[in-house]
């Protein structure tokens, strides 16, 4: 286990408000949300559908803007950024893992993992991509295309793609949602492994079993954080063993 020496938050949200129009009525998707996540943390964001967790995830991932509040990630205030500046933040600071993998067809695993580095003109993308794939245990599948890989393998490629840029945070949206429970557990093990190496992970899920794997669980209802539950290490290990 990595000791958390740096106690200043890696990711800090203050008074976050996000509204959108649903027909004639205004919906408050996020209502003055405060949240800070420490470096090396592994956090689950849970809540029923429509609770605002997807909106929070999009904003955390710098995919969406918001109406009020501040968002600082890794010391950079991204509250006012738009367009290409946000794309640059996503490229450098955020690694996405999606429910349906979202790998590009017709590209090999290696090429998929390389892609974020190509957008930042990385000097040795190939070597870095190889290292990332080795880290998720896919050293022998590098040249396979997504269609030639199983669901679990695809999600490992996606995780490799997320960690290859060495981002500040890994954002996973229902990462086990499309996998059976055995493979889902393997993927969670991968998350544990990279978390043990010091990476900060945020998993958005409605699955309480997945949430119990994390150190903390942030529960959202109606656009507000209603509870933050600490799962202690031994309990998490028990969950991990039970699968």
């Amino acid at each position, binding site marked *: 286990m990595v000791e958390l020496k740096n106690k200043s938050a890696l990711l800090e949200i203050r008074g976050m408000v996000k509204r959108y129009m649903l027909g004639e009525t205004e919906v408050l998707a996020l209502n003055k949300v405060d949240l800070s996540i420490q470096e090396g943390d592994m956090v689950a964001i849970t809540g029923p559908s429509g609770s605002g967790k997807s909106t929070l995830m999009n904003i955390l991932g710098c995919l969406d803007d918001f109406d009020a509040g501040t968002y600082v990630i890794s010391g950079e205030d991204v509250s006012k950024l738009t367009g290409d500046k946000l*794309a640059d933040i996503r490229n450098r600071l955020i690694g996405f893992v999606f429910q349906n993998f979202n790998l590009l067809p017709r590209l090999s695993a290696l090429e998929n993992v390389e892609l974020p580095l190509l957008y930042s003109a990385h000097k040795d993308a190939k070597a870095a991509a190889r290292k990332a794939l080795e880290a998720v245990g896919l050293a022998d599948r590098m040249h396979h295309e997504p269609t030639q890989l199983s669901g679990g393998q695809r999600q490992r490629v996606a995780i490799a793609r997320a960690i290859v840029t060495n981002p500040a945070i890994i954002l996973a949206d229902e990462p086990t949602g499309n996998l059976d429970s055995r493979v889902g557990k393997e993927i969670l093990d991968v998350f544990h492994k990279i978390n043990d190496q010091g990476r900060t992970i945020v998993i958005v899920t409605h699955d309480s079993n997945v949430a119990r794997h994390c150190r903390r669980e942030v529960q959202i209802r109606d656009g507000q954080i209603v509870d933050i539950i600490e799962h202690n290490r031994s309990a998490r290990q028990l969950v991990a063993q039970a699968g």
Partner: protein
Amino acid sequence: MLFWTTIKIALRSMLANKLRAILTMLGMIIGVAAVIAMLALGNGAKSRILGWVSRMGKNTITIFPHNPKIPPVLNGAAEPLTLGDAHAMLSIPGVKYVSPVVTSGDPVKWGTNETYCNIIGCASTYIIIHDFQVQSGHMFNDFDTRDRASVAVIGPETATRLFGSQDPLGHTITISTERFQVVGVLVPKGRHGWFDPDNQVLLPYTTAMTKLMGRAVALNHIDMQVDHAVDLTPVQNKAEEILRIRHSLIKGDEDDFWISNQLQVIQMANNIGGAFTMFLGSVAGISLLVGGIGIMNIMLVTVTERTREIGIRKAIGARRRDILRQFLIESVLVSLMGGLIGVAVGVVAAHYVKFRNFSGQVEPHMVILALSISAAIGIFFGYYPARRAAGLNPIEALRYE
């Protein structure tokens, strides 16, 4: 790095959709092939005309008795060109040969054979001025001209029509009621359009004027050749000056004659040929436009189909310009490949298509032009779909099914 990956991805998606790629390129292939073939054909026509003009003699100046700028109804008042005018030309420095020319179109007979051809009364230097060669016998000389000798030099085509395979030398042909002895046959030059330099009869101008044209004094034109080291323009200006004095023209009067030199004719042929080529090229260019619209259509479909891919790319950090560039590269790739195939088809077509008596001539600049236009079409018609892709909202694009 990203550039090559983008090309690799584009090629792979083209390979995965072979039929679609080929159909998309077909418009460009047809367009570029048509442009190349038409430009080549126009070029072939032009070089054919230029070749003919230069075969009609080098460094020549021709004086005609009418000025095309003066309406025909006023031309009656013009002074005719006379032998005196022709002789005066010899005094201009740089002029090597001068030949007065009178023409007529009477039928020419030998025995029962009869043919129509140009009958040209000229000086012995006429064949030098216009670069004719004598294949058998000889050209009539200055003594024949002085003596108004009844001698004729005939073109090879005229010889064949009148004499078949017989040797015409020494035989007597009849024009109008006059009889002429054939003393020479010209080397063939090749027919061009309405004018056949191989079907003509050359007579001493003195003989032609007295025996065929009823002692007329008006010349049809005066042909002259200028030393190759001398510039044509000052000679032409001097000729104009002399003729204005001889024709008693005062300041402000238009010339009552017309002088043209070969360079002007070549320039005119060039202009006409160029305009012809441009016309053919633009007609073919319309099909390129249609090809471009086809590319735009398919690119719009591609962008829609790949909305999710665009979303993924944006999520992992692709900027607007990265997406824009990716789709522009794809559309340029499609149009350039179509262009390359089109060039190949066009070159082959230009080689095999023969129009009347000229064939297409492909030049490197046409290929470069066609390929540049293809690339430009790829950029122009690919820009709108690419901009649409670049402007997609990443969240909506990721959600797209």
